[in-house]
């Protein structure tokens, strides 16, 4: 052990810096908040005192040699990785760094199509070529699942030149693929295994949860510490393992990451890592118990289905994250997004997201029993007041894409603008997605079909927040010019 997990080197360095009462003739210009009293009053003076610049005693995120390096080593130890990078530009930047470290332009990467937009954005930036594996779909719940091992194997055999395979662990809904077997399979064919663990930070700190990427020997993982880990929004870890080069990965990160790394974000990563390393088992036991209690109570309400491990099928649902509270709402005749809106507008309850058939309530150690009771009681009321026939509801969330071009080719191709209905049959040059969850309905390079357009219209009608197109109203879409195809 290099250092005790009790330590938080970045926080300690900031405390030393404060105690030294250093006179700041450097940026930021608010100078410990004194130059912007309204901001200091709003965010708190302590917060602004710690919003400082890189300097020798505080290290530098672009090239860590002292306290940030120590924080990275402690994080690597806590996560069981060869090295950990502190990131301040969201897990989006971690996913992009993984893809760009593994693949150069024109190289192939195998991935499920139900990835977050950040993964496909990485393909636009890097020019890597996606090979999509269709995820399983649960017809009853209408949600995309994990990848079947056989499907992955077929993709590998068909594309033995692929450099890497990207896996969600878990999906937004809490569903895990057979990470261990897919990792072993990929390694047999000398492919890197990249794992998007935006929703899996807690897997590293509690033995009742599904396997983490590092624990099964995956090569890289992007971990949203700010979700279940408790750090500040936008802070994240990138983990590497095995033969992945620390130096090269750092270079890739530095292509796009800020040179003014925020010490608020970095210290929040440091402190949260310490907290999870010391108390994770106990914290997530509590979260699992709260989620399970709430799930059991919700399942007593006729019409809602809060699913969990009973879904496990040994393959496309290899494991389920019990700390997630995903609820299928079609049984009461409402789209998930409608329940999401009613909860907020009528009951002052904000949940994580609603899609066409499900809602997700995010449970954490910060929740109180009485708030869980409010959620259950509000759902009881929604059933009493709104239950209706469910036959008119759309029943699936996943449309198999037809890929015509790589995301980068299509994104940068000469394009023309068409209204959505007129775009049927053409190749999209941009994304359309509901956010959250941010899984593209159509991505650049994919053919726009009537099914896709109908689905987009349905999402709009139900009140989903659509995004991705240049047109803020998502009525017109950029498509690749015919002559250039």
């Amino acid at each position, binding site marked *: 052990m290099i250092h005790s997990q009790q330590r938080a080197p970045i926080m300690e360095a900031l405390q030393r810096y404060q105690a030294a009462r250093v006179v700041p003739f450097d940026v930021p210009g608010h100078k410990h908040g004194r130059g912007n009293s309204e901001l200091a009053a709003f965010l708190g003076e302590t917060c602004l005192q710690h919003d400082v610049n890189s300097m020798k005693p505080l290290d530098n995120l672009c090239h860590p040699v002292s306290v940030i390096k120590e924080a990275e080593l402690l994080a690597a130890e806590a996560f069981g990785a060869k090295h950990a990078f502190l990131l301040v530009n969201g897990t989006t930047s971690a996913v992009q760094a993984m893809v760009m470290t593994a693949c150069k332009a024109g190289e192939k990467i195998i991935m499920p199509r139900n990835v977050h937009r950040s993964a496909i954005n990485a393909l636009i930036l890097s020019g890597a070529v996606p090979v999509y594996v269709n995820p399983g779909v649960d017809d009853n719940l209408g949600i995309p699942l994990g990848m079947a091992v056989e499907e992955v194997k077929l993709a590998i055999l068909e594309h033995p030149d692929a450099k890497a395979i990207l896996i969600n662990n878990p999906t937004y809904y809490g569903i895990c693929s057979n990470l261990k077997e897919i990792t072993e399979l990929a390694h047999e064919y000398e492919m890197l295994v990249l794992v998007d663990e935006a929703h899996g930070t807690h897997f590293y700190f509690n033995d009742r949860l599904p396997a983490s990427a590092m624990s099964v020997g995956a090569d890289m993982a992007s971990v949203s510490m700010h979700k279940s880990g408790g750090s500040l929004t936008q802070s994240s870890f990138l983990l590497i393992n095995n033969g992945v080069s620390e130096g090269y990965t750092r270079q890739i990160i530095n292509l796009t990451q800020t040179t003014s790394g925020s010490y608020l974000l970095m210290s929040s990563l440091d402190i949260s890592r310490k907290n999870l390393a010391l108390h994770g088992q106990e914290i997530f036991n509590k979260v699992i118990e709260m989620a399970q209690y709430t799930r059991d109570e919700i399942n007593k309400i006729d019409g809602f289905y809060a699913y969990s491990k009973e879904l496990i099928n040994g393959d496309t649902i290899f494991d389920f994250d019990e700390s997630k509270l995903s609820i299928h709402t079609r049984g009461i005749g409402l789209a998930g997004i409608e329940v999401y809106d009613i909860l907020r507008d009528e009951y002052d309850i904000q949940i994580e997201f609603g899609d066409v058939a499900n809602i997700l309530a995010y449970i954490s150690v910060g929740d109180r029993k009485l708030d869980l009771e*409010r959620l259950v*009681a*509000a759902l009881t009321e929604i059933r009493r007041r709104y239950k209706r026939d469910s036959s008119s509801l759309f029943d699936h969330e996943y449309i198999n894409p037809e890929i015509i071009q790589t995301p980068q080719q299509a994104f940068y191709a000469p394009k023309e603008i068409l209204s959505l209905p007129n775009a049927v049959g053409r190749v999209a040059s941009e994304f359309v997605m509901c956010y959250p969850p941010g899984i593209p309905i159509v991505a650049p390079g994919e053919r726009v079909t009537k099914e896709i357009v109908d689905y987009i219209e349905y999402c709009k009608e139900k009140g989903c927040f659509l995004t991705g197109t240049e047109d803020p109203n998502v009525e017109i879409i950029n498509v690749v010019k015919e002559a250039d195809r």
Partner: protein
Amino acid sequence: MNLWYTEDHSPHVRFSFRVEEHLYTATSEFQKIDVFQSTEFGRILTLDGYVMVTEKDEFIYHDMIVHVPLATSPAIEKVLVIGAGDGGTVRELTRYPNIKQIDMVEIDRQVVEVCQKFLPKTAAQLTDPRVNLYFEDGLKFVRQQENAYDLIIVDSTDPFGPGEGLFTKEFYGNCYKALNDEGILVNQHESPFYAEDARGMQRAHKSIMGFFPISKVYQAHIPTYPSGHWLFGFASKKYHPIEDLQADIWNELGLKTNYYNTKLHAGSFALPNYVKELLIHAE
């Protein structure tokens, strides 16, 4: 010795009484519980530093929260009481021979135990055979009931802390469901006077009137509550609190009360103009 208890009635107003003895202090799973012996008000129970009940003025609150619905619908047999750990509401209910069942749901067992020990004046009837005590979350209890009660009395603390779930729309909606077609809901409705209390009062009124065809507010003067001007809500699926008042029947029962009478019953629904305006605004 000069020992005083002080409570903030608003961020800028304080209320104090002289304390003779601090009889009990402890922090339960939910809140801080204290009992004082005071010179003027007798024994006093506070939760998280807010006065809940005093021996001297508790009769006003408990008279008004119980006798108003019972004089409107003397046939009431099955009652759900939520909160009310001091036992005063149940004590008044047990005076009605007609009532067959009283279910009391209090989240904090320790409050009941403390009141049974230090406030026998309010808590003595909690052992009545018609009373069933449930120590659980009121919101959880009520959402599991349907068409089950003639009367629900919400004797809650404030819209913050462990009682905050009892001021929500989901709570009142579930109360509606838990009542039968003739059901009445009476609730502690906060005060119209100080801004923060008034907001809680408006929110509660808005939620209740969204569910019940009849939704009225009545008032009482309670010296130890902020401003002394306190409100109760009366909501019903069927009975109007004044038009359906059964004054003769109630008076024949011969219950001796120190605050409530059937004339005051009707008068308590006559509200000051500023309160009426607050309610109209909430609607």
